[in-house]
């Protein structure tokens, strides 16, 4: 399935990935991605799932402009060819990127300061972000004083402070316990419903992907290819109890599970 996998109107697309492959050259050559193409529409929430080691993270790093695809493949973000990281993209990785010597608030400010955003403007944004992330009373705490969940929320704040139009989330809650993870997914959903930015979320949890996303891209084992692009037609706003108890929710989960060879 090498052609462009369906999406919203391509003219409206925020992200266009076209025939992207990636081979890591080294002692033994590893082909991580194999001619991947897809579009992500403006304001869409897309989940990418696949077995571990299938190149999901590599794909996300290519979209972020942190690594370049093999020649022949291109990534366009907001209609521009992606060659380097951009201010319009916020990235959150599985391991949080908080600096241990800065407080939660200073960590959130950091990216905005680096991009020389006006000090008053930064203050306003931080004041807006902290309550959304429920970090108001922990603004002066250092990362080692925060719980795992609070750390990932602060990491989300690091990405939000630059007001990106595109959020790339690489298993941001994978290292957390199931309860905290579910809770943060709900908060993420609420946040997304409020700001309606384009989100690409890499995850290995099928239920998480279905619960959050408009579309789920399923990737095969290495070399990663997109083997299915599934539209999730669950009504919004979604919430854990009513959405997850719907019969079509279970059907999506079972279908994706079968596809990934789990059932």
């Amino acid at each position: 399935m090498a052609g462009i996998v369906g999406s919203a109107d391509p003219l409206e697309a925020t992200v266009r990935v076209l025939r992207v492959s990636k081979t890591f050259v080294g002692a033994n050559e590893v082909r991580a991605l194999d001619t991947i193409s897809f579009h992500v529409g403006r304001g869409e929430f897309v989940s990418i799932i696949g077995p571990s080691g299938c190149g999901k993270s590599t794909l996300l790093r290519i979209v972020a402009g942190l690594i370049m695809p093999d020649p022949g493949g291109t990534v366009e973000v907001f209609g521009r060819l992606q060659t380097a990281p951009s201010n319009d993209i916020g990235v959150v990785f599985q391991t949080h990127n908080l600096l241990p010597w800065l407080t939660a608030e200073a960590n959130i400010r950091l990216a905005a300061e680096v991009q020389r955003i006006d000090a008053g403007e930064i203050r306003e944004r931080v004041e807006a972000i902290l309550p959304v992330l429920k970090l108001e009373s922990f603004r002066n705490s250092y990362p080692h004083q925060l719980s795992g969940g609070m750390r990932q929320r602060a990491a989300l704040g690091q990405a939000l402070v630059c007001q990106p139009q595109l959020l790339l989330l690489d298993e941001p809650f994978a290292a957390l316990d199931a309860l905290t993870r579910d809770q943060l997914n709900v908060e993420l959903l609420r946040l997304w419903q409020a700001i309606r930015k384009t989100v690409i979320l890499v995850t290995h949890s099928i239920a998480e992907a279905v619960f959050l996303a408009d579309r789920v891209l399923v990737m095969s084992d290495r070399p990663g290819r997109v083997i299915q692009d599934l539209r999730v037609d669950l009504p919004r706003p979604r919430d854990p109890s009513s959405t997850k108890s719907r019969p079509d929710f279970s059907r999506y989960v079972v279908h994706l599970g079968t596809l990934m060879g789990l059932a």
Partner: protein
Amino acid sequence: MHAASRVRPFRATLERVAVFIVLAALWEWAVDIFAIKPYLLPALSSVLRSLWHNRMMLLEQALVTGGEIVLGYAAAVIGGVLMALAIFTWPLAYRMFYPVLVVFQGLPKIALAPLMIVWVGYGTSSKVLMAFLFAFFPVMITTLGGLAGTPEHLVEHFRAIRASPWTMFRRLRLPAALPSIMDGCKTAMPLAVIGAIVGEFVGSQRGLGYLILESNAQARTDLLFAALVAISLLAGLLYWAIELLARRVWWRAL
């Protein structure tokens, strides 16, 4: 929790002091009972007497040696950090200087002391240079290790937020390296003390190292011991100052 830390502070102090008192008493009586000749081992009381009588002279000599140590140490910290930065930043500097530095590091610095006297004379500079030579390498090596050990995911994060190389250095690599740099500074302090004393041994007319050789030559072992006490106090004071500074870098291993 360790059992000792549960003991009340007063008792803990008492226990520590008790050991010193017992050792001091043993020293004083042993010299008396075994009739040890004063030039071999003076009684503790005569060492203390000598300390008191010569207090101004000891202070003066300690200031000389202390000045040499502080100058050499400061130069070593600044030079070590700068050299590590150069080697880390420019691959050319790494290829050119690193092998030379490794060879110098392997060389026993003590063996260089006579050469330093020949080159820069009997004055203060040769002692400063010796303190510098002793303290330079640990600072440089730990700084280099700290800079190279910046977590890769944080480097990627700074690339993602489009930080300039200077910002990356100032806001990430330097603070990330500070705990290692501080370790190097702590290791280097006692070495700078050794360097300055060795420099004074080889050729000088001033300082605690000179005083030790002089009192040795005159068989004034009580004064020699007094000089040793002065050196211990000086070294302890200097190390404590660095320790206080290092405490401000609390984020190691987080």
